């Protein structure tokens, strides 16, 4: 089971491409190298000297199979054309992933010199690379579609109930305008709770399939959202079934009076229909409706009326067409691929769309559209005001419905089934404690956002939210756990109470019961899965898959190994150099969490009765002896976490993978956020103000 599990096998294909580039590039540029003269960078280049001294043993032609990367053929000129490759080498040097632990190490001065040289090359590579990545045209995903339809018609109910919106609001706790999360909140767990999928919605409307999250990415990624005849068929039917639903009536539809209701008799129908459609189509399509568009839709409506349909029916048909139109279904930015530098800025309408889909998971409202129309939105002051407004609006809940659960990969807990005999308390009546566990990190995230707390709280919070049921999962915290009474625990509405956290073994998104459970198997913890989760989620640096012919760690200890701890068994397992590089990074991350059993309870001994040793070193720099010191180690370099987290947010905001050019923006964002105490809203604001967000 060692190398099992998707998170472990999963990876970022770009990283492989980087390797490929490194292998192919030297060949490509072998010829014209004399033409492109080696440009000396201030002082003598140390790159060749240092790579030969410290890297060549593994990273050369003969060893390429083992190391997957040949540095002997690689010159700075090659790197000047490949920002991603340069960045990657910088990363491993900066993060002390290379050279490996048992190899001769660079001195501090050599390291700095090496990095400085690479940084200069990186800047050149960026300049060489042109405009960088752009987000391509994409269909709305199911979640965005739901929200955009609700907003367009101002529906009093939802279109579909979606399990991907894991945490349901009860009793209206979510009030970002107050800047404060209530002490007590009532929530529901849609995928795991009882009857939580029952909520007011349009009868007779069937949801289309959920759009799946990209590996190490989000479910809004352009390259994962395409259209098929089957889905098109569903979307066409959906447009009709929404507008024909028995629940689609004046009381449920906020825009009924201004759009669907028959105008008074003395009005000339033509102009009324045109005016209504102009406003409606502008909102639906997020850009000004031109004359020919309005003509088309209004003649459609008028001809229906002429052939006997009543007014609301004709308008409903136009509305059904509107929400089946590609202009509604697709998110896109106009213009050619190779735009000049000046025209790369997104238009105000496009900016409004980006902004609202980022923070509201939906189309822009009238305020944003009118600011776009008057070409004010790109003004920094106006944009800042709007960011404030969006962050205080209750529609912010939709951001909280998407980003945190996907960032933390929390859907994985839906299928966690710890061994019932060993962990009976995980199960209650017909349910699983995971129903309560899953809410804890989500509530923490919402609080950090609404209260604009430092993002370091996500690692090590001094508060949390717990239900009574969830407190049982943390009974080990009490001196005498027996005083926590076993309560039935809610299964529909779950009441959570904010409590201070003084024991730093809990708190934050890592060491909570949900994450500890979902990164374990039914019978034992999976330190590598946990390590890979931390590498991907917390440091935004997913591990590569295991290299060739890895000797696996058997499910049960081998003869003679029965008394070894899992750490000792794994150490034997990674004696090979090609395993070590990766495992030296991810194993300590997972071992640091070995004190949490498969359902997140604290333990000091493993299954074999050996004392657990969680100690290790983070990035071969920060030593820690226990999980509290591990959190200290993460926070010893808050910029690293800030940058990683900003990368997750930006990738979500832009609906694409990030490229080298975006990394420059991430560095700037990190600096600004740091100067403002790592505040969450500052981070979101800086992402929106950044160049990648405002250019195509």
């Amino acid at each position, binding site marked *: *089971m*060692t*190398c*099992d599990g*998707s998170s472990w*096998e999963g*990876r970022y294909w770009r990283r*492989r*491409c980087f390797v*490929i580039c490194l292998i192919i590039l030297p060949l490509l540029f072998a010829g014209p190298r004399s033409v492109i003269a080696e440009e000396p960078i201030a002082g003598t280049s140390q790159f060749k000297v240092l790579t030969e001294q410290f890297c060549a043993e593994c990273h050369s032609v003969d060893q390429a199979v083992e190391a997957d990367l040949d540095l002997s053929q690689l010159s700075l000129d090659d790197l000047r054309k490949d920002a991603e490759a340069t960045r990657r080498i910088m990363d491993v040097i900066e993060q002390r992933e290379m050279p490996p632990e048992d190899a001769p190490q660079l001195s501090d001065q050599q390291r700095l010199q090496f990095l400085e040289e690479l940084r200069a090359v990186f800047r050149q590579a960026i300049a060489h690379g042109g405009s960088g990545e752009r987000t*391509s*045209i994409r269909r709305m995903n199911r979640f965005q579609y739901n929200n955009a339809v609700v907003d367009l018609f101002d529906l009093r109910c939802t279109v579909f109930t979606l399990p991907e919106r894991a945490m349901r609001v009860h009793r209206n706790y979510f009030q970002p305008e107050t800047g404060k999360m209530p002490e007590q909140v009532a929530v529901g767990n849609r995928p795991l709770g009882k009857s939580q999928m029952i909520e007011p919605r349009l009868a007779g409307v069937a949801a289309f399939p*959920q759009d*799946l*999250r990209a*590996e190490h990415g989000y479910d809004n990624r352009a390259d994962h959202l*395409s*259209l*098929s*005849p*089957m*889905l*098109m*068929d569903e979307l*066409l*039917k959906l*447009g*009709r079934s929404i507008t024909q639903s028995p629940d689609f009536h004046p009381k449920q539809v906020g825009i009924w009076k201004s759009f669907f209701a028959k105008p008074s008799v003395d009005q000339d129908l033509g102009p009324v229909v045109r005016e209504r459609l102009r406003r409606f189509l502008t909102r639906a399509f997020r850009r000004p409706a031109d004359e020919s*568009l309005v003509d088309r*839709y209004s003649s*459609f409506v008028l001809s229906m009326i002429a052939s006997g349909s009543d007014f609301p029916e004709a308008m409903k*048909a*136009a509305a*059904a*067409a509107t929400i*089946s*139109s*590609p*202009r509604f279904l*697709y998110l*896109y930015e*106009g*213009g*050619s*691929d190779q735009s000049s530098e000046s025209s790369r800025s997104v238009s105000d309408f496009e900016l409004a769309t980006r902004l609202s889909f980022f923070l509201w998971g939906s189309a822009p409202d009238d305020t944003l559209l009118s600011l776009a129309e008057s070409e004010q939105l790109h003004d920094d002051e106006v944009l800042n005001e709007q960011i404030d407004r969006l962050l205080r609006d209750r529609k912010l809940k939709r951001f909280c419905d998407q980003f945190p659960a996907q960032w933390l990969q929390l*859907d*994985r807990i*839906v*299928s966690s*089934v710890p061994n019932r005999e060993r962990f009976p308390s995980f199960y209650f009546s017909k349910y699983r404690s995971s129903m309560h566990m899953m809410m804890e990190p989500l509530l923490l995230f919402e609080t950090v956002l609404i209260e604009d707390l430092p993002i370091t709280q996500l690692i090590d919070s001094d508060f949390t939210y717990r239900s009574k049921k969830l407190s049982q999962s943390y009974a080990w915290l009490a001196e005498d756990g027996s005083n926590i009474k076993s309560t039935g625990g809610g299964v529909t509405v779950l009441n959570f109470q904010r409590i201070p956290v003084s024991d730093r073994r809990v708190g934050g998104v890592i060491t909570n019961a949900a994450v500890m459970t979902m990164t374990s198997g039914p019978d034992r913890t999976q330190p590598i899965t946990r390590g890979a989760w931390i590498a991907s989620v917390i440091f935004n640096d997913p591990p590569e898959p*295991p*290299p*060739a*012919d*890895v*000797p*696996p*760690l*058997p499910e*049960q200890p081998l003869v003679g190994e029965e008394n070894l701890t899992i750490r000792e068994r794994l150490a034997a397992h990674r004696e090979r150099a090609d395993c070590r590089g990766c495992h030296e990074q991810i194993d300590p991350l997972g071992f640091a969490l070995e004190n949490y059993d498969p359902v997140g309870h604290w333990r000091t001994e493993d299954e074999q009765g050996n004392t657990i040793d969680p100690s290790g070193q983070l990035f071969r720099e920060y030593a820690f002896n226990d999980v509290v010191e591990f959190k200290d180690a993460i926070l010893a370099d808050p910029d690293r976490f800030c940058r990683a987290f900003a990368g997750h947010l930006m990738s979500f905001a832009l609906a694409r993978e990030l490229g080298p050019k975006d990394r420059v923006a991430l560095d700037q964002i990190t600096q600004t956020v740091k100067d403002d105490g790592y505040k969450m809203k500052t981070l979101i604001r800086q992402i929106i103000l950044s160049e990648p967000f405002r250019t195509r």
Partner: protein
Amino acid sequence: MSISRRTFLRGAGGAVLTLPWLESLAVGSEALAAQSTLRMAHFYVPIGVVRRGFFPGEQDDVIPKGNLGNVMKSLGKQNPNRNIKPLEQLTPTMQPLESLKTQVNLITGMDRTFQQGTDVHAQCASCYLSSARPYTIEGTAWPLDRTLDHLVADHVGTATPFRTLEFSCNSHRDNKESIYFDNISWYGTGHLAPSIRDPRKMYRRLFSNSEISRSRDITSLVLEDARDLQQELGGSDRKKFEEYFESIRAIEKQMDRLESMKHELSLVDFEEPTEAYLPRGDYIRLMGDLMVTALQTGLTNVATFMVGPERWDTPYMFDGLFDKPRSHHQMSHNQTKMIDDLLKVDQFHMEQFAYLVDKMANVDDGNGESLLDNTLFTYGSGLGDGSTHQYNDLPIVMAGGGKRLKKGQHINLPEGTPLANLWLTQAQVMGVEMKDFADSNGLVTEILS
């Protein structure tokens, strides 16, 4: 389980759907009326098979230990040379085909190429019917081109309501894997032909189309929007946006053709599936019955069928095999411990294939031929073994094709024969004029009569 459905299907060769009915379906194509339509179906098995149980001569080979990550080659030795023998003694995993062995070919020695750049499982299913030459497809890490089923459907799917149909027996409710793990059918790179997992949904897609024509009026309106929009897009976006037009066109045709089949479809006696939980075998066979019915009635000529999703290590029940939910993927990585269980899973999947082969053999397709005679129906996995994650020496069983094909053989192809050669051969048998496909370098002439 619906008795009437079963009864109908058991006797499906007979009463309900007979030749005259089929003839009337030859909508707009005279060729169809003259000779039987040839169909194609692919039955995909995820995560490879236990080699010892499947491949003749490998029964004593070493059992892969744990997850052999990227070994990506066989641990044992295969015959590297061409070898053709009658298919006589079946291996344990092949046993369910005992009574059908004269109607199938076992094909061994076929290889694919893995393109560095994605997870090893991510290409297993997604690129199984494509196998593009590595690094020839731009802008993606997957060697994924328009898949065989769509290329064939471009030729034989032009007159059916559905060009193709995609089935997946994936009952997972957690969505832990991406689209690359649940689909073998792609219109092209990054353009998914999504599979249907829910038998009720498939049923409604096939048989309840009363609503479809009502959306017609709005289609023409939105098509205008689409044409305008296209003008505003840059080159690469414009290309991507083609999918919108393709979808609309496909639906237009689908509406026309379903309309003309209305009467015939009303005669199909297939009870609408209920929401009740189905044991895994029943679920797979229900999906299979839907596929056979769709091929039989001419709703489509091309179908793909995934008997389970790739990887997705969430456990599910294999009712009747094990007491507890089990993860196929996990078993594949623990063959030293779980080989017997994994063999049961392999055999279980083969039973489902055999059930469908048998079913097609008993459906009368007119001219004294069965549906099986007029279908190329192929069992296969994208991996040769779930532990070694090898893309070579794949398990392939091909059924059907009637007199066009030789059967009852074990064909072992020379080492390094691309799987694409078989796909190319199938495409040509299907009447597609194609000189090469993906990384093919020849034909598998051994199957041709």
